[in-house]
């Protein structure tokens, strides 16, 4: 099946198996291995990406269903100046241990901040409820999300 889609700002045209998931398309066809393969059943959130700005689990999305749409993965968040606010806050808060959940967490926080620039802690926890972490106990991830929100608000204020 022939699909056309945009990933992290670049246009791709590829021939794919009809039942190929977006997750496998990103990892195996495009070599974008930041997006992680956890459960393949929608439960862990490690494969979270944005499709047209909305967070989805890419393991339950067929690549052919995202034809003509725009996908953003964790690799697409970096700015010209380096890490974006969410990525930087994960680093400075020590919000990753093994790091396997981190790309999904970062993309989920990114999705939240785009629709709600100053979330409460409860809203952060709610929006991360589909992302499992086996290491951190979540608190540092929540701290990172709240700090990223403050940093981004500050950056937009200055700009």
């Amino acid at each position, binding site marked *: *099946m022939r699909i056309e889609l945009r990933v992290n700002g670049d246009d791709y045209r590829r021939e794919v*198996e*009809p*039942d190929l*998931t977006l997750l496998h398309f990103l990892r195996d066809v495009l070599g974008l291995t930041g997006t992680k393969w956890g459960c*393949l*059943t*929608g*439960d862990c*959130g490690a494969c*979270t990406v944005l499709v047209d700005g*909305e*967070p*989805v*689990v890419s*393991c*339950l*999305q*067929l690549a*052919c*269903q995202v*034809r003509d749409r725009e996908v953003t993965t964790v690799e697409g968040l970096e700015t010209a100046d380096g890490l974006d606010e969410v990525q930087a806050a994960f680093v400075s808060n020590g919000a990753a241990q093994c790091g396997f959940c981190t790309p999904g967490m970062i993309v*989920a926080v990114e*999705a*939240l901040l785009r629709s709600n620039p100053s979330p409460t802690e409860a809203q952060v926890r*709610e*929006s991360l*409820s*589909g*992302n499992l972490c086996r290491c951190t106990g979540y608190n540092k991830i929540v701290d990172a999300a709240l700090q990223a929100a403050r940093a981004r608000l500050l950056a937009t204020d200055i700009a």
Partner: protein
Amino acid sequence: MVDVFVPDTLDEAVGFLGHHAGAAIPIAGGTDVLVDTRTGRSAPEWLVDLSSLPGLGGVELDGEVLRLGALTRIRAVELDPELQRRAVALVEAAKVLGSVQIRTMATVGGNLCHGTPSAEMPPALLVHDAVAEIVGLGGRRSIPLAELFAGPGRTTLGPDELLTSLRARVRASSAGSCYLRQTVRWSMDLAGVGVAASVEVEGTTVTSARVALAAVAPVPLLVGSATETVVGTDLPSEVADEAGRQAAAACSPISDARGTADYRREVVSVLVPRALRIAWLRATGAWPEGVPAPVNGVWTEEDL
């Protein structure tokens, strides 16, 4: 390997499904279908991708009638400001389904047509008197939503038929509804018991009411007897409790990993009166707009 057919029109989708009866199943959000094909629960030769068919999404209000396209995402229901006022049970049910990611993908039609007895949308739509609009090779037909469900994982739709939209009754005033759920985890979990209630009032007197249950029978259940008990009263707690006992008697739960049959029946008898009371408080205006029902339905004056 599964092949995917992408129809351009509804007619084409219905034609393909009819022609490949038994071998083709529709896919929209994919959050149930792809889990089923991966775990071997279903093994279709074809998936018919409905996700980009025009005209099947959207939330429209015409007076008291809500029209909900089958492809409407659960997340869109959750965030719709008009539904937050007029169909609170539906919004509360949407809010607890899966995760943000799952709700962004999953559709109302998919949640209904997958036929899961514990699904969130069925009870919430049943208490809003929903009617299912269906299209197939034989044309269009409409049925009360309760008639869509045939058993666990089964609907009454023919192999060529598709649910296109729902019509539901959502009054703007003197009406309230509520959805409560018992689960072990909160997110990414299925209901052990789901309870939806709706109430219409004149002053403080109940003129009409509905109670519907999830996960306590082979199909989502509308409990008629509970309705009759509360109509004509101001819903004092004895009456609400009696409706709860009737709902518990009407259901037929099984014992599984989420709870024993006896436990589930007990939970029904507790959650039904709580859901009815909150729906009534909302209908009479005593419950502040925008305040969600606490997860277990227990509240104090301070919460309001």
